[in-house]
């Protein structure tokens, strides 16, 4: 089928290695570096980065249409809305 990008083996391999390295960083920083509450933030930042790598190169939204990107982004937007409104409620309770 024309117009569809075939992701080469090398790209898939690099993506996989990147994800493994990020997993090792996640474990090392969470287990052996005490940052207090910031540990959670750091772990979530790395996890979000990993999820983005999977979405862009494995799924691969990098070579997909804006239609499919919009579908993915809109679901993330609604989940964010749930998180933000819940947080606003929790942090403003007396």
């Amino acid at each position: 089928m024309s117009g569809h990008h075939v992701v080469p083996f090398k790209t898939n391999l690099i993506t996989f290695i990147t994800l493994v390295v990020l997993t090792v960083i996640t474990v090392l920083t969470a287990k052996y570096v005490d940052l207090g509450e910031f540990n959670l933030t750091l772990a979530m930042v790395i996890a979000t980065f990993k999820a983005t790598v999977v979405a862009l190169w494995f799924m691969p939204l990098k070579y997909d249409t804006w239609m499919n990107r919009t579908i993915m982004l809109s679901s993330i937007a609604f989940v964010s809305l749930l998180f933000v409104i819940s947080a606003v409620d929790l942090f403003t309770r007396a």
Partner: protein
Amino acid sequence: MSTGKVDRRVEPSHHFDSMIQEHEAGKQGVWLFMATELMMFGALFAGYFIYRMKYYDAWVEGGSLLDWKLGAFNTIVLLLSSFTMAQAVTDSMQGNNKKAFRNVVITTACAFIFMIVKYFEYSGKIHHGLFPGLGVWNPEAVEVAETKLFMTFYFVMTGLHGIHILIGIGLMAWLLKRLKNDEFSKDYYTSVEGVGLYWHIVDIIWIFLFPLMYLI
């Protein structure tokens, strides 16, 4: 429909103009399904964070009850399975059903390894009275009472994720059968790509579950 070993799609279904249009429509449908998956797990994650704020000590104790080494091992297993799945999509787009078959076999093997590790984790928790329900829960096993709530989140979230892995194994068995029949080609590989998208979303969910359950 099956008329022999090779039964490849060359014509679009009657309600589509072209194979490309049919492919795009099918793929978009899978993406919409993936959007609902993210929102379903998103709600569970929201619950996790709210109760983590409320019962922080229980979350710390709950996390320490889980074996992060098993969690890390399973993370690597799932990442490997995502890699072979992505490669299977590449192979089928190039019309190489044999290579794609091999890669889906590895993906399926990884899925089984993941579930076997999960089985040992779950049975260990049940054995120690850390399963919240069915009369299994042992209040003496924990210091903070609300750790029961953490374990509920653990079993519901990893359980729902595990069900997705099992469904994935079923989908891959279906792919393997069709790859063996040499059904896919450069012009038709929608099913391989669709299962691939599903499998990567399952991986993305685990990428968040692993640090939240085992590490933090």
